[in-house]
């Protein structure tokens, strides 16, 4: 069917609405990559739906010329689940932020992931509440100085990927807003995965938390601070690809110098298909500055998809019982006749 489709371009996915994020907001870059990736999927435009919650990122659906729903704070995964159950042929994207997904909407995120609903959840993590003008978020580092924490935050942040992996997400990935080629590749992988795809995107809030992810995005700096994950390949980082990650005697990761005689075979090899989520969790625990932070696909496994299971039950019931017959339903159970 896809061969018969008119060739869509990024422009076809742009709505007529003026994009109103702050200048140089990381959201622009993510929007651009999304519009670039969708035409590559071979899916007609009318088969996409973008569902969002509340926050800067959640304006995203207004800028896409697809079906879209800008819902309420934290509830996008729930709205999207209902939508997917109603209209299973649609490809559904959930656009959310760190406050939306992990604070007010934590419960819905957790349950969408553990059900493995066929949704692509993209979490724009800027470690700040931008729309409400600069309060710390559940991903802000300890000690963050913000409007609501003038003496520094004292609560420990959540690691979005740890949450997703803890819920045994079947697809987990991380990308950076301005690393556009890599980001596009990750979005495409997320789209192609059946079940819940969870992608954390490091996104720069230029106004309230500028530069929070410079370590992972700035050319010349990032190379030593990140490590790209590749399936079945060893974890190697550094400008000169001279830093490796291996597991020590306690099974914990450590950074080793590849110039000191350690061979690549001694390093930790990535396996995104591992059924057991332990490796993915271990990778998610590697945080800058102690470790180079992994980018890419942490986990990509298959598990029954919730909405498919639901749909199958309906078709099985119809196959077994026939299409619902109201007359039979009304007359089920004990009935009696009152004579005239």
């Amino acid at each position, binding site marked *: 069917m896809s061969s018969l489709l008119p060739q869509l371009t990024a422009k076809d996915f742009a709505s007529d609405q003026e994009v109103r994020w702050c200048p140089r907001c990381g959201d622009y870059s993510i929007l651009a990559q999304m519009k670039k990736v969708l035409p590559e999927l071979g899916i007609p435009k009318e088969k996409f739906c973008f569902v969002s919650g509340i926050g800067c990122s959640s304006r995203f*659906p207004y800028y896409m010329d697809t079906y879209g729903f800008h*819902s309420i704070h934290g509830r996008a995964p729930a709205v999207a*689940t209902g939508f997917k159950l109603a209209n299973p042929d*649609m490809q559904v994207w959930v656009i959310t932020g760190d406050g939306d997904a992990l604070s007010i909407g934590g*419960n819905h995120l957790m349950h969408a992931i553990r059900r493995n609903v066929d949704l692509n959840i993209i979490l724009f993590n800027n470690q700040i509440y931008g729309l409400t003008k600069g309060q710390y978020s559940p991903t802000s580092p300890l000690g963050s100085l913000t409007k609501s924490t003038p003496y520094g935050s004292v609560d420990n942040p959540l690691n979005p990927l740890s949450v997703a992996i803890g819920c045994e997400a079947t697809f987990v990935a991380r990308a950076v807003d301005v690393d556009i080629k890599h980001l596009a590749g990750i979005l495409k992988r997320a789209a192609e995965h059946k079940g819940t795809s969870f992608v954390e995107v490091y996104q720069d809030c230029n106004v309230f938390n500028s530069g929070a992810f410079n370590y992972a995005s700035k050319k010349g700096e990032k190379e030593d601070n990140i490590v790209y994950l590749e399936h079945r390949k060893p974890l190697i980082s550094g400008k000169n690809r001279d830093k490796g990650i291996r597991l020590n005697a306690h099974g914990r990761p450590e950074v080793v110098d590849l110039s000191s005689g350690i061979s690549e075979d001694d390093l930790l090899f990535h396996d995104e298909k591992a059924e057991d989520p332990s490796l993915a969790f271990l990778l998610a625990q590697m945080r800058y500055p102690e470790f180079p932070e992994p980018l890419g696909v942490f986990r990509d496994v298959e598990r029954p998809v919730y909405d498919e299971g639901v749909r199958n039950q309906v078709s099985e019931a119809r196959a077994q019982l026939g299409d619902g017959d109201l007359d039979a339903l009304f007359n089920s159970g*004990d009935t009696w006749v009152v004579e005239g």
Partner: protein
Amino acid sequence: MSAVDSPSASEGRQHEQVDTVVVRFCGDSGDGMQLAGTQFTNVSAAFGNDVSTLPDFPAEIRAPVGTVAGVSGFQICFSSQDIFTPGDEVDTLVAMNPAALKSNIQDLKRGGTLIVNEDAFEKSNLLKAGYEANPLEDGDALASFRVHRVPMTRLTRDSVEGLGLSQREADRCKNFFALGLVYWLYDRNPKSTEDWVNTKFGSKPKIAEANLRALKGGSNYGFSTETFTVHYEVPPARLEPGKYRKITGNEALAMGMAAAAKLSNLDLVYSGYPITPASDVLHELAKFKHFGITTFQAEDEIAAMSSAVGAAYGGVMSVTASSGPGICLKGEAMGLGVITELPMVIIDVQRGGPSTGLPTKTEQSDLMLVMFGRNGESPLPIVAPSTPGDCFWMMQEALRISVEFMTPVVLLSDGYIANGAEPWMVPAVDDLTPIVVNRPEGPNSDDGYQPYLRDERLVRPWANPGTPGLEHRVGGLEKADVTGNVEYSPANHQHMSDTRLRKVEGIARFIPEQDVDGPDSGDLLVVSWGGTFGSVRTAVRQCRAAGKSVAHAHLRYMNPFPSNLESIIRSYKQVLIPELNLGQLSFIIRSKFLVDAEPLNKIQGKPFKVSEIAAKISDMLAG
């Protein structure tokens, strides 16, 4: 219990024909009283009596055994007449232990029949119930009743002897012994209960046999002992001719949904979170998958509501159900349904509040909540079924209004009609009204698809996502009319707020006019709504039969009101509004129509007694 026929001798006993009987089974919540009551209801309904039931059970699944807190009861009124309520006073009370006796005896009428399990009246049970002395031994305490002390525990054990049951298993058959005895007393045919036992315990033949023996044992006990001198007969009711079945309100809601899905040719997605007393709607509906019905047990009430909104955008019939505490949580997402003008039905099976309140008891205290309990100006239509069977009709009506007018609709049920049962005339499928759904196939203007381009009733179109050319966005931010683009301008917000209200108000032109039982004008109009229908209708008719000038208007459409309601209200000298709350409909009617309507409020977790309403009517007409 009124005799309509002179006693005749049968089997050496008085054989009395009576027209209406109220029986209540009560015991510990583990004693199987709900089961006994349900079986008695089924047998009586199948026999052709009119029936009305009132299950009454504790919020605790198993409160401490033998305590008053753990008492569970099931009242059934069965009659050869057309009845509307489960009865004010009990004719025959079956009490399985002292706690059950203590908490129910006040409802037994003077001269009524009391059947007690005498074996349970031992010291520790008496203490747990708060009795200092055994009331069965106290000559005065129960003097005004016909008391039958039956050693049910021992007789049940005797009945099942030889089956190799543990004592515990044997004792669990007591309810069937009690049921058998009451079947004998009221000349019921136990056949359908026997069938039920065989089906239910098909895989456990020993348990099936034990229950059947206990049932028979109870019946034989009634037949062979001398204690029961009277044997009663309640002839079939003279109901409107047709085919009937028994139905509870929650079952009727589920069937109404299946019907609406068929009638509209749409699939239906139901999202819910378990909550008493609404959970049975989910249980029933989960069996109806072959009707294209998907049930989704969400992670919480907010998700249930949010997914209902998502499903509505997705293009199917969408329903969620809850009770008061859940409706509070749903409020924000209901507002999202209002501003996006999407069709869905929110069922509120009301219970006692505030907060967790009285989870298993009935109340009508969420009218204001669903009418006004959201931020901003957030109007939506509200309907309220009046009986268990009416839930079937109003469920379809709610779904019809939602899809025809593109709006969330609230259906207000309550614990009383949700769990209560009545005979229900099986409808003919051809008599049901089709639900017309207009889906745009292509752009509705020269500028492409305009999601908020309204028709003459102010209704916006409902595009089915997946349709080419109709891509559009909706959301919780205020929208410009026609285009649906985000729009914050002052004039637009005024326009959209006015429009949403006018659309809902305009639905009054498309719902039936209010009907009145009784004279078109007169001294007193009683206005009621929801599950109080039976008590109010009975009381008003009694008073009218006694020569009083009183009429009854029972509302099923709470917002908007039927367009003739105001003129009806103005046609009587006085207006009485009985409600199971502290005055919510009366508050609205008083403010809307500027009439001095008199409230009658009760908030005890129990339905009105007919006598309570009749007394108030008499008071008002005497004053």
